[in-house]
């Protein structure tokens, strides 16, 4: 649609016309601010934790386990050198033997959401799939952080409380 609009503007005499064809889907997927009736505060991106542990597929389980637990977590995301999510080490996987590589122990391709995904839908997904958290990635697959179910539910509760007070 935007290429047609850009072309029409040129026909109307505009000489500096640019087409951002990736549009607001791309913009929102990178966690950039959105305005309107469904602004950024209603999106996953506003509630992401970025201190989540990540490791590489070639790391050794013994090292990863120690790092994850000392950081106070019980799961870890596996990313490549560009930060693209490859897999997840859940609670059970983290108990794998010391000489096993992360690539051998991880669960492949965990489901992710974008920062622009609506918070209420993310909570619904976590409830339906009995998940305690969801990895959040950009449209190019790079890890942004993690949405924790407890924090997301609290945020939804707070926002519904605010609405009822108005």
């Amino acid at each position: 649609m935007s290429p047609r609009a850009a072309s029409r503007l040129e026909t109307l005499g505009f000489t500096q016309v640019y087409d951002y064809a990736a549009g607001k889907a791309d913009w929102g997927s990178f966690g950039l601010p959105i305005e309107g009736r469904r602004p950024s505060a209603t999106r996953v991106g506003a509630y992401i934790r970025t201190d989540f542990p990540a490791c590489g597929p070639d790391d050794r389980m013994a090292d990863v386990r120690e790092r994850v637990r000392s950081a106070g977590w019980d799961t870890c995301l596996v990313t490549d050198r560009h930060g693209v999510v490859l897999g997840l080490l859940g609670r059970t996987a983290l108990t794998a033997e010391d000489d096993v590589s992360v690539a051998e122990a991880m669960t492949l391709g965990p489901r992710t959401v974008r920062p622009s995904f609506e918070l209420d839908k993310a909570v619904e997904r976590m409830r339906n799939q009995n998940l305690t958290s969801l990895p959040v990635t950009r449209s190019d697959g790079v890890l942004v952080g993690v949405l924790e179910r407890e924090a997301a539910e609290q945020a939804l509760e707070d926002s519904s409380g605010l609405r009822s007070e108005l």
Partner: protein
Amino acid sequence: MPTAIDRDQVRQLLAGDAQLVEVLPKEDYEDEHLPGAINIPLKTLDAETANALQPDRPVIVYCYDYQ
């Protein structure tokens, strides 16, 4: 021919004096839009509605995605 740009180029142009136009229908625009964007739906884009824009400044148009 219009120049295709990416997200970083949008931000660079907006740091200057570019004008940003969402060409989706009004309802979509009201739900969500990029900060500072005005709305001129494609179906209404003609010489009259384009008067909301200054022809001597860059204009960036966008919709939802590549569709």
